């Protein structure tokens, strides 16, 4: 048959799915390959075979729409089947079925942890092959469902939205279906299935395309948890993957997502932290949410009931969003950070408290928070273990950096910078990858954090979190702005806390996110910038917030950044928050921008900020006024929120003058975050 005819036939047959489903079969054994091919043809699938994994990858990369499903042998001479499995899952998000003559439990488990949607034993029977089309369908549903769910949740989640809801939604999609779109985060409840971020992302208005793998919040959480468990040093993707035990989650996915999430989370966290710092977790959540986008915010508002899951939930949304676009990223980050933060936040939050007190700079805290979040995320990803502390420290530094924040915010500082900055300040910044944050510019730090995140991400080669990085950075930046002193103060406060440890801790505790919030206490000075940070991070923040909120509450001592700071910050947040809602998707990206803007806006807004802060509740709401630059900041924040979380926390503390702050924190957080971002 001529190619055109063949193609036509194939096309026609595809309409009668599962008839005509396009399968790519890879097996180095010619006998098995021939048998498999014939069996598949008998099932009326359209089969392409190759005996080399390299060729298979090439074919898939050339045109990922060429196939619906991949079946691969486990033992191949040129490439390990699991590796191929990971790559396919990560890059193309196609369902992959493993084949092997070896049916040992550990091998099967390995297949599952690497993301296989099924594992068949040789000799394969035709009956088994007749059903493999379900994996394709399941995946599609999963993605779609998740996206819808996430979106739904985000939009409709009442302030006290129950994080579990998110889980619920997500769970249905996730499971085996594998990655709905890029990163599927299975929302599954326990640790972590990160809900399909994709769903969220896809629905996200700003999400232009469906992410391949949905880095659900849960996934993120799991990721964070796994990372935490493993410790930064040992947190290699593989182990994380195994720990997470998420189906089809490939390492790459995770890493990338994680990074993204971190940034998102960081920002979120920051916001959350801010939120939390001040008040009840609810606020934090709100804060985070604001960061994420107001939607997220609402979920964050649920922070009060914020549970790690809750955070995760938001992250999930975020995660989903992450996939789609920048905004999602923040969400994911948030989610990621949320998850991470959750774990960490809790611990970190505590830590942050410590640090925060010093810093009153609410903004800073916020910024930090957001940064922390982002950083946290990054950190988590990379470092799991003491990322938080470092992040925090980094964040702290970032704050200290003051001034730099602005710079940071404006441009996604390379994480390194931030890290450095923060580190400088914080001194101990432990792992913060972005640790550069510690460098003087909190801003830088924040941005750095985000960038770090990005870098981290890039390392993973997963998601180009650039947006996040900036977010991370932003946070730092924002901190600095206002707070230059404050930040320093806060950051220092934060850092002393344990710099990184705290943050990191939060991660583990999952409260991490909240921790950030606390950390973020970025001095209100950080103002708007930071606020935006929150906004930016809102994506993450949402997630983070959640966590942050949770964290914060206990710890956030934030003291609320001086109200004045808050005001500014808040103001910043507000806009960002608003923007957040509006631009959830953008938030992540915006993070970077936001920060820069937030700072400016923050400052301006500040006076009224207090009320705005509450943005957490309101912010989320698509206030359209958001077009403020702040929103941008927010987005930025969100990204930074990752790392900021800690910062945020601190900021939150700072900002809140204690009273308003808590409430405001939510808002402020955003701002600060935004600013930071």
């Amino acid at each position, binding site marked *: 048959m001529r190619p055109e005819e063949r193609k036509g036939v194939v096309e026609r047959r595809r309409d009668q799915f599962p008839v005509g489903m396009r399968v790519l079969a890879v097996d180095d054994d010619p006998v098995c390959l*021939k048998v498999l091919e014939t069996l598949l043809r008998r099932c009326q699938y359209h089969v392409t075979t190759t005996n080399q994994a390299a060729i298979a990858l090439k074919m898939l990369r050339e045109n990922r729409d060429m196939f619906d499903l991949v079946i691969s042998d486990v*033992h191949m001479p040129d490439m390990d089947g699991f590796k191929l499995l990971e790559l396919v899952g990560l890059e193309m998000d196609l369902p992959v079925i493993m084949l092997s003559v070896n049916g040992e439990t550990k091998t099967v488990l390995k297949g599952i942890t690497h993301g296989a949607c099924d594992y068949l034993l040789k*000799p394969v029977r035709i009956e088994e092959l007749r059903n493999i089309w379900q994996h394709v369908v399941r995946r599609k549903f999963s993605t779609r469902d998740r996206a819808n769910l996430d979106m739904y949740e985000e939009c409709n989640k009442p302030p006290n939205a129950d994080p579990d809801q998110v889980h619920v939604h997500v769970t249905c999609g996730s499971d085996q279906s594998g990655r709905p779109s890029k990163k599927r985060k299975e929302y599954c409840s326990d640790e972590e299935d990160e809900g399909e971020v994709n769903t969220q992302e896809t629905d996200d208005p700003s999400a232009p395309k469906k992410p391949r793998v949905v880095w659900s919040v849960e996934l993120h959480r799991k990721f964070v948890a796994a990372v935490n468990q493993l410790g930064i040093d040992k947190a290699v993707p593989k182990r994380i993957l195994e720990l997470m035990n998420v189906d089809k989650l490939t390492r790459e996915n995770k890493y990338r997502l994680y990074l993204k999430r971190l940034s998102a989370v960081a920002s979120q966290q920051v916001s959350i932290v801010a939120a939390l710092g001040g008040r009840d977790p609810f606020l934090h959540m709100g804060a985070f949410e604001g960061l994420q986008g107001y939607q997220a915010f609402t979920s964050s508002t649920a922070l009060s009931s914020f549970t790690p899951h809750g955070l995760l939930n938001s992250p999930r949304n975020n995660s989903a969003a992450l996939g789609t676009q920048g905004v999602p990223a923040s969400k994911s980050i948030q989610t990621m950070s949320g998850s991470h933060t959750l774990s960490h936040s809790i611990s970190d939050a505590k830590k942050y408290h410590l640090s925060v007190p010093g810093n009153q700079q609410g903004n800073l805290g916020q910024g930090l928070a957001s940064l922390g979040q982002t950083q946290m995320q990054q950190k988590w990803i990379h470092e799991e273990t003491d990322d938080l502390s470092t992040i925090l420290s980094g964040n702290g530094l970032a704050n200290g950096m003051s001034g730099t924040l602005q710079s940071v915010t404006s441009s996604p500082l390379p994480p390194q910078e931030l890290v450095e900055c923060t580190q400088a300040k914080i001194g101990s910044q432990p792992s913060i990858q972005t640790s550069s944050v510690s460098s003087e510019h909190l801003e830088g730090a924040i941005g750095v954090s985000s960038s770090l995140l990005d870098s981290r991400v890039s390392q993973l080669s997963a998601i180009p979190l650039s947006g996040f990085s900036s977010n991370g950075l932003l946070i730092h930046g924002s901190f600095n702005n206002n707070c230059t002193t404050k930040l320093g103060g806060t950051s220092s406060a934060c850092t002393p806390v344990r710099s990184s440890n705290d943050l990191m801790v939060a991660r583990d505790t999952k409260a991490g996110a909240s921790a950030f919030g606390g950390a973020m206490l970025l001095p209100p000075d950080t103002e708007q910038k930071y606020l935006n940070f929150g906004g930016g991070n809102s994506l993450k923040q949402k997630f983070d917030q959640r966590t942050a909120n949770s964290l914060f509450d206990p710890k956030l001592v934030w003291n609320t950044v001086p109200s004045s700071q808050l005001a500014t910050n808040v103001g910043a947040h507000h806009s960002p928050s608003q923007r957040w809602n509006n631009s959830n998707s953008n938030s992540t990206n915006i993070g970077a921008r936001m920060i820069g803007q937030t700072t400016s806006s923050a400052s301006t807004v500040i006076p009224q900020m207090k009320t705005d802060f509450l943005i957490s509740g309101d912010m989320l709401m698509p206030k359209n006024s958001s077009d403020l630059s702040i929103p941008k900041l927010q987005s930025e924040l969100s990204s930074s929120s990752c790392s900021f979380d800690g910062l945020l926390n601190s900021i939150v503390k700072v900002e809140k003058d204690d009273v308003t702050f808590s409430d405001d924190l939510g808002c402020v957080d955003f701002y600060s975050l935004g600013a930071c971002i």
Partner: protein
Amino acid sequence: MEYSNLRRQIVFMKKNLFDQGYLDEQFNQLEDLEDESSPNFLEEVVALFFKDSSRLLTNIEQATDKYPQDFYKLDSLVQQLKGSGSSIGALRMKNECSVFKANCNDRNLEGCRRSLQKIKREHATLKQKLESYFQLLRQVGPRDYAVSSRK
């Protein structure tokens, strides 16, 4: 009549192969896959198997001589052989491969060598039997469905 005699012989031979454990259900599955578009599918796959497995066996033997301590390598080579064998339904060979793998696990080189010899014997025996089987089949001509349609 000649035809039906042949047919009976074929059936008988096949039954023997199954009873003696040389073949298992997979072989039948492959036979069922034959249709108009791939009338000699089974024979083609079996031929392919023997060609590939001869090569594999040579590799395994060389490996046991050259890298006797590299059990991991031996194991993975035999695993390939086991995979192909199971794909065509070569039951005895498959089982012997499992024994070999167990020996590898125990790092029992002697055991591995013994297993390898057994695998080779099974391989040779199966090859011979299946060759006779296909010869008979060729004499009979295309499968029943085709024959009936002609009638």
